[in-house]
């Protein structure tokens, strides 16, 4: 499903956070939003998710303006995979994933046996069936992130929004989570992530959006966006971008440090 953002602007206490942001994420696309701290990534994210509605411009998903949608309808289109979830109470992995069923339940109902089945399917799909009855608190960061992905699959929404999904993960888990997300785009899911890792977004994305000072400074395929110039504009650090393995991978080398 397509996500279209048009002329989106948001100001906090008259201080502009986002200015004239427009882009389109198509079905099956892996879109990374790259930008330094304070660039407006989180705000953009919250606007798309409908958690922040005091913006001007429009966000349309599958052609529908999201401002006209109820939380329930919205949840049928977009699933949110938070960076880290720390539930106050001690839920099992199974129960957390089961929460993805909520949008289909009428207010006073609890999940049914069929929901249990779908929950097992979602756990199986991200390869964490063995964690089903474990306590969520006790999992590693990578496992928790996979649980969040399973919950999004349970939710059965065509667009997945991941907020810095690999920020707290070790190297192995970062790649595991990214590969999982990439595999989902092959099935038609649209994945939008915010990230602090230029190299990783190059490796996995179909498109990179470079956001700086609340504006999109570049939007295109990774090969066009991930250049020394862009990285320097974004982060204020001079880098040499080195291409490896027939340009399948690019590495940023900070010039002043090495």
């Amino acid at each position: 499903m397509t996500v279209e953002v048009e002329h989106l602007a948001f100001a906090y206490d008259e201080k502009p956070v986002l200015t004239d942001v427009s882009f389109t994420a198509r079905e099956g696309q892996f879109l990374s939003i790259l930008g330094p701290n304070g660039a407006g990534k989180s705000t953009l994210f919250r606007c798309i998710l409908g958690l922040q509605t005091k913006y001007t411009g429009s966000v349309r998903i599958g052609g529908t303006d999201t401002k006209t949608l109820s939380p329930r309808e919205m949840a049928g289109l977009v699933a949110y995979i938070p960076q880290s979830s720390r539930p106050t109470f001690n839920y099992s992995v199974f129960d957390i994933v089961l929460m993805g069923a909520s949008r289909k339940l009428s207010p006073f109902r609890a999940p049914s046996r069929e929901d249990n089945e779908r929950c097992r399917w979602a756990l199986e799909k991200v390869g964490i069936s063995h964690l089903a009855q474990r306590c969520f608190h006790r999992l590693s960061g990578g496992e928790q992130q996979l649980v969040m992905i399973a919950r999004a699959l349970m939710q059965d929404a065509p667009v997945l929004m991941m907020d810095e999904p690999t920020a707290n993960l070790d190297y192995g888990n970062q790649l595991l989570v990214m590969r999982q997300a990439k595999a989902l785009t092959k099935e038609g899911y649209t994945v939008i992530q915010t990230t602090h890792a230029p190299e990783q977004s190059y490796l996995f994305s179909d498109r990179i959006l470079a956001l700086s000072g609340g504006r999109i400074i570049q939007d295109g395929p990774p090969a066009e966006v991930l250049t020394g110039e862009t990285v320097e504009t974004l982060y204020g650090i001079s880098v040499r971008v080195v291409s490896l393995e027939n340009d399948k991978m690019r590495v940023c080398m900070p010039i002043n440090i090495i």
Partner: protein
Amino acid sequence: MRNRQKTEKDTPLGAEAAQRRHRAVLVILAAALILCLLLSFTLGRYPVPLRELLGILAAKLGLPVEPFWTRQMELAVWNIRLPRVLLSVLVGASLAAAGAGFQGVFQNPMASPDVLGASAGAGFGAALALLLDLSNSLVTLLAFGMSLLTVALVFLIGRYVKGDRLVGLVLSGIIIGSLCQSATSFIKLVADPTNKLPQITYWLMGSLSGASWRDVRLAVLPMLLGLALLLLSRWQINVLTMGDDEARSLGVNAPRVRARIILCSTLLTASAVSVSGMIGWVGLVIPHMMRRIAGSDYRYLMGASVLGGGIFLLAVDNLSRTVSESGIPIGILTAFIGAPFFIWLITGRVDHYDG
């Protein structure tokens, strides 16, 4: 721990097994409550044997039973013991459910039914009514009304607090609650120390010793309504504990559901406090204890809290009737029992899953 993990991994029905286990806990609790109810009549100054009790109850239900009990026994059962036992269960269940509801809504295991000032408001209302020499019914009604009014005021102020909505609510709850307590203290100061002050003090301590059918009739409807709505909202409370953003993106309108849960919990607290005075600890301790045996999932936790709260308060009230002639006010006993119990609870092992 290793073993358990292994078996759960190997069982394809792990989730169903866990759900069955939790349901079994509810059945056991329900059985314990019934047992406790029956036992309650056999304790105290006029112990009524089980056979006579069942006979009296059957006769009251219109079954053709020849009386083999004394008239006095029948009056004791029907007019004194039964309303008190019912009220204990209702108040205990309400306070525990309200506590569980508030803990879920505020994502805070330290929340109790007093968190938004419901008890403090009720206390002020009752003290005022007693000062003005109003009738018993009016004391209850004024306590109930002030309790709701206090929470409404807290909710209103909370809306205007800058920053985090939940913290704002809790803060305004603390402010208004302590304001109510000061007002109550002022009333105690000006109240006639020979008759009214003891009355007020006694009311505030919380007691079920004067329980009558009138109290049951006044409280039962709002309590059943609140309990039913909380039980029906069990799954939405689960989702709400994930925080507003996550709940919303999962399709749950967090502010609306929270308002409903707060309303129900307040209704329960207000009705409980207005008929029994301030009975502390039940709303805090019981949900915690139930989390230990029924898990954190509100699908089971809410029901377990309702049953557990009923059992606990009934048991404590039985104890209070048994240990002394006049009966120690139950509010004091719940604190004496609740505090050490809570210490034991929070210093013990925590995790329910992963053995």
